[in-house]
């Protein structure tokens, strides 16, 4: 408990210290603060007793926040949220230290905002009270707005504007839904409660199916913007493209995961009837996103934009696994959230490192950098392989389980979890494997390999000033030091995912507990669909 | 106020005349305010509306046999005097800036 608050408050305190400290000390202070926060959270994780039970620890306290409606400051982790929080705490020091040379103006504000961003993301993952979750979830926008709007690329204003308004609009659906559920709870029991567990069990058991349908739709609409799902993804490429490197890393790394986490934590448990009813629609969107975004990636010339669109494609697979509504897919999905954060975050970091040297990320102007920066090229290939799901690296397990879960999510109940998707969805989403290789290897083939192409104006005075001695040489020790931990974690998850799978398993089963029944009901309510599902194998027999 | 309000019977001529005069004063004031561009004239028109409102209060005061209406009017007169001093001072300042009394010279509030 205290360690959780320590990990949240240390960055806040660091931000306060940075605000009054010397500008030159800001980056060191931020690094110390973020590492201390990671340390606190790691210490908590070390003695976390619920790795294999799926329970929430510690029991959320009733400590008052808004007394009149009984909103609390309840925080607590289960293994899934703890893993995501650890990912966040792990990425933040990398972002901070990765910005050491990239950010040269207004350093105090930059690192201060970063610390606040960190704290609010941790609040969101730790919260057990939906209102507190909302506050953490929503407050992330404020630091991010400033980080993008001040330290971003040439279109930073527009990007920040769009990011803020777009995701804010999405959050309103989410806020409306949870207020509705809280109000219903009050109307039905006479008590106010905003505890996630209480509200979930109340809503799933007491709200009629029709209400659950709309509740799920609203929550999905809210979180889909954040994920982002097709077709509400258009803020993401712009934001990624304009954000400073560290902003992109944290955006891809954990901010998007707030959306997937929200669906996993709130939408699925609160409205199983709605989830079952809407799973197919949502999955169609996911599947479209996989192919659509992958094809768009393939024709991008801007390296950063390519990786940004690849996030849309990847998260399509991730969400598809979730909507498979069986433990295989959901396990894969949760694992995929973490893997995507690691590998895409690392790719953004790498692109940022090259950008710092050349100030160009358009692959028409720059390429073949392996000749100049072999170490950079090594990491680039490594994380590309991780991103396209090479077995033995982290991407594989999550992606594979997501597709696997989708595949076996047929009406057949032999797994104990009948589903609504099936081979067709897996086949279409599976083309993402091919398309993923196509665009990522295009990136590697042009950006990393091939004949060396450097921008002509490299001797430009402004650049020399910005370089801070990084020059055009290979990665510095500091940069390698950032990438090696990421690579090691990727390798570890790829080689030995068992502890993570075992930790995620119970939580997933708990979340999906109401689903077999709900899916059965949905299947029954769609007699034509059910008949078609039965008729399908016969047709294939003939053929 | 008293639960039983002593009241003149409806249709007292003095009250009706007073109300009519106040309505005319107010109408003249508002039309003048909306139609004229000279700031001093506009200010005079606001004064007219003020006095119209004051006259209405006195009239209702008489109708209700209550002195509060007249008390308010005395307050309004003092406030109006102070306001007149302030407003005319502002008008003088504005005139010095642009050498004109037209209100149209001042449209910084317009969007774009």
């Amino acid at each position: 408990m205290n360690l959780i608050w320590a990990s949240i408050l240390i960055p806040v305190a660091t931000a306060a210290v940075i605000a009054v400290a010397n500008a030159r000390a800001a980056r060191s202070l931020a690094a110390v603060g973020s590492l201390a926060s990671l340390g606190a959270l790691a210490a908590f994780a070390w003695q976390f007793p619920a790795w294999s039970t799926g329970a929430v620890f510690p029991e959320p306290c009733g400590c008052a926040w808004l007394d009149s409606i009984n909103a609390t400051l309840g925080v607590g982790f289960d293994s899934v949220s703890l893993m995501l929080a650890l990912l966040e705490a792990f990425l933040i020091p990398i972002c901070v230290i990765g910005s050491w040379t990239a950010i040269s103006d207004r350093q105090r504000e930059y690192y201060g905002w970063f610390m606040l961003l960190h704290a609010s993301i941790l609040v969101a993952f730790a919260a057990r009270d939906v209102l507190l979750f909302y506050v953490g979830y929503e407050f992330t926008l404020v630091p991010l707005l400033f980080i993008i709007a001040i330290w971003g690329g040439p279109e930073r204003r527009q990007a920040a504007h769009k990011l803020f308004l777009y995701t804010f609009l999405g959050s309103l659906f989410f806020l409306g839904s949870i207020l509705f559920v809280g109000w219903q709870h009050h109307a039905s029991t006479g008590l106010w409660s905003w505890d996630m567990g209480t509200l979930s069990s109340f809503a799933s058991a007491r709200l009629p199916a029709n209400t659950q349908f709309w509740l799920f739709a609203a929550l999905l609409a809210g979180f889909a913007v954040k994920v982002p799902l097709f077709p509400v993804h258009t803020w993401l490429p712009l934001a990624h493209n304009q954000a400073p490197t560290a902003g992109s890393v944290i955006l891809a790394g954990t901010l998007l995961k707030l959306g997937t986490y929200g669906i996993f934590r709130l939408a699925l448990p609160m409205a199983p009837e709605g989830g079952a009813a809407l799973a197919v629609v949502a999955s169609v969107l996911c599947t479209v996103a996989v192919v659509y975004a992958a094809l768009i990636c393939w024709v991008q010339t801007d390296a950063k934009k390519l990786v940004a669109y690849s996030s849309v494609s990847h998260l399509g697979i991730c969400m598809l696994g979730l909507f498979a509504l069986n433990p295989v897919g959901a396990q894969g999905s949760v694992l995929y959230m973490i893997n995507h954060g690691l590998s895409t975050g690392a790719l953004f970091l790498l692109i940022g490192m090259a950008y710092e040297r050349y100030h160009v990320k358009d692959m028409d102007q720059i390429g073949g950098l392996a000749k100049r920066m072999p170490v950079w090229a090594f990491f680039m290939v490594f994380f590309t392989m991780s991103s396209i799901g090479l077995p033995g690296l982290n991407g594989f397990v999550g992606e594979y389980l997501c597709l696997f879960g989708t595949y076996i999510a047929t009406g057949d109940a032999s797994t104990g979890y009948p589903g609504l998707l099936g081979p067709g969805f897996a086949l279409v989403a599976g083309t993402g494997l091919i398309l993923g290789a196509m665009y990522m290897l295009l990136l590697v083939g042009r950006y990393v390999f091939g004949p060396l192409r450097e921008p002509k104006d490299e001797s430009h005075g402004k650049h020399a000033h910005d370089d801070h001695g990084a020059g055009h040489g290979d990665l510095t020790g500091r940069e390698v030091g950032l990438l090696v931990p990421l690579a090691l974690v990727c390798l570890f998850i790829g080689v030995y995912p068992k502890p993570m799978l075992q930790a995620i398993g119970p939580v997933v089963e708990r979340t999906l507990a109401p689903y077999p029944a709900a899916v059965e009901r949905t299947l029954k309510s769609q007699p034509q669909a059910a008949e078609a599902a039965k008729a399908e194998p016969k047709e294939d027999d003939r053929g | 106020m008293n639960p039983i309000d002593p009241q003149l019977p409806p249709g007292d001529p003095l009250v009706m005349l007073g109300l009519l005069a106040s309505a005319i004063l107010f109408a003249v004031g508002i039309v003048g305010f909306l139609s004229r561009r000279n700031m001093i004239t506009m200010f005079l028109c606001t004064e007219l509306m003020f006095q119209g409102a004051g006259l209405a209060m006195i009239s209702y005061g008489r109708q209700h046999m209550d002195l509060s209406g007249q008390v308010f009017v005395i307050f309004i007169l003092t406030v109006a005097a102070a306001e007149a001093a302030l407003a005319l001072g502002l008008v003088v300042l504005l005139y010095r800036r642009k050498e004109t009394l037209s209100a149209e010279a001042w449209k910084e509030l317009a969007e774009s």
Partner: protein
Amino acid sequence: MIAAPAMLSSVLALAEGPLDAHAAPELRWAGLALLLPLLSGVLCLLCGWMKVRSKLPAALTIAALGGAFATILRLQGVVGETPVVINLFDWISWTWGDASRFHGFTANVDLYVDRLTVFWMLFVTGLGTLIALYASEYMESDVGKGYTRFFGAVSIFLFAMGCLVMGGNLVMLYLGWEGVGLASYLLIGYYFTKPEAVAAAKKAFIVNRIGDLGLALALFLTWQCYGTVEYAALWKAIEAAPASSEWTAQAIPWLLMLGAFGKSAQLPLYVWLPDAMEGPTPVSALIHAATMVTAGVYLIARMFPLFVVNPDALAAVAWVGGLTALLAATIGMAQYDMKRIWAYSTISQLGYMFLGLGVGTTFGASYHVFTHAFFKALLFLTAGAVMHGFAGQLDIRKLSGLLKVPGFRLVSLLAVLGCFWLAAFPFTAAFFSKDEILVSAFTAKDERVHLLGWIGLVVAALTAYYTFRVGFRVFFGPVKYEPGDEHHGHDDHGHGHDAHGSHGSHGSHGSHHGHHAEFHPHGPRWAIRVPLVLIAVGAILAGWPSYRTMLNHDEPNWVKTQVVQSSAYQGGSADSHGSHAGHDESSNEVAHAEQAHADHGHLVLGMDAHTAVGRLGSLACIAGILVSLYLHLINRGAADALRRTLMGSIATRWIVVGAERKWMVDEFYDWVIRLPLRLIANILSAIDELLLDAGIVNGLGALPAAVGRLFRPLYGGVVQGYAVTMAGGVALVAAWVIWIWLRGAN
């Protein structure tokens, strides 16, 4: 309370895996065959880190691969008829619900060691070691540059290939499958500053990915049908329910096939292999001829129980194999780049292997894999030695009479030996293995594949022709050569930096080499010669099992023994064969075929199939060689004249142009798949940016502003304007109040 330390200790405990009690203790070391290449891979990475500028990486790799080979040799001695599963550590494994069947998924890092595994690993590690030794000299001009990277990738390749072959479940196979793909990608793109190499590497990876998707889906289906993807449990499940008629079970072989066709370069996915020749020659020999491309054959052989129940799928495999063999042979006849010719011949020979699988002789296919591995590696390596000595020259029109060039006699002799083997000259190893396949094709139960026997014979003749076209042109005849465009003294093999690319693409170079006159080819030294000789010995010895069987009919073919006692030979569980001796072949497809031929049930041209195929095959081979002898040695002008004649007539012109331009398959794919996809992608990108983002999203974003603009005239900045608005507002409120009042009054 303290669960995390427990997690850590379980990580440490995975070092020792449990083992069946009855298995030989040596089997415990099977994991070494994987660990050693992995170790050398890691050490190469460290070498790269430390910027080692010596041949240390090569030494490490050779030592590790040699160790792996020794391990496999040791295993060969002890591996029994019962497969042994060795669990190294848990990888993906968990259950849900009541943990019954279909309530859990297990894919651990297991090794499944049976005779087929060991047989396959034997030539993989053996050739791997020899080719690494060869490469240590071949790549020496890159010492300090790409040398470490090269050997690191070779180590990764051997590790992944080990996972593929020894893995105990389909997910492990998939790991190896993708791992060899990665190694192949890295090695094809070894000269990474050369755009062709990068493009070829990318193409190889992507085309393989198409197959991989099939493999992945097959894996899901397997689980869905049988509840497991582990071989041992899978065989049991199949035995329990052998011939499921559900579409799911029927679809598995088709999807597996897709994966196999991708990796083994068969129609329609073969297009990556010729381009893969952009990689250094040892890579072509090791990965793209001897080992990796046989992974598809291994996959189908290993999963044969799933194929046996589906005759349609088997026939499809046979036909794809046969047609690929034919197509690739015709292309190979018309190419001029020595490596490309060998590449097409690899595709063609792989076609034979699939033909063999399709007609049910996993033994024939595996035997052909085995013999092919040696002679094709030999041919590639000799081509590499030539290329190494002649500054990258590979054009068969610009090399002649190398047998008489000092320093190249040994290489030339070995190359000619390889040619005889590839042409399946009577009583060479390949003759026997090809014979096995063709006999099965003629005698197969399934009538639909009999025609393939004849196609196979035609391909045999074509093979002999194009093989000796290279052999006679390059190694015989008058001494004449032009160096390639690599800088002599080979300061740099990665010559492609200056993008004069495509060495050996015909006709692009020649006259502009001023130093042509002073060019002196240099012969290879021992590190190239020794592997060449050893591989040649291997190629000769590969026929040994057949010689012994020929002399003594009761003695079973050694390779057959290896293949029979595995999952590759029947529809049931491997265990059911535990009691069978090697030559006891009842209850399997091939045995059926052979019995049939023993009964003279299948006659080919009135002769018993074996005799007929032997004679016809010899005839085809010798005919091909004789044609080649005339056109390419005795009267070289005749070949050009023939070409001119064919080109002269409209009716025959397409044959030459088609074969030389590889039947336009690449172009076809480009037009039919890549370009439309590219177009769609561009359209989608435009839709995303213009319609979705700029149109809908920004449009909705502009809505509030538009509404504001509607009321803007009211706030023109003039005081009276505001006053009118206010007065109007007051009037509206007043009107509303009056309206309410009037309504109330009613």
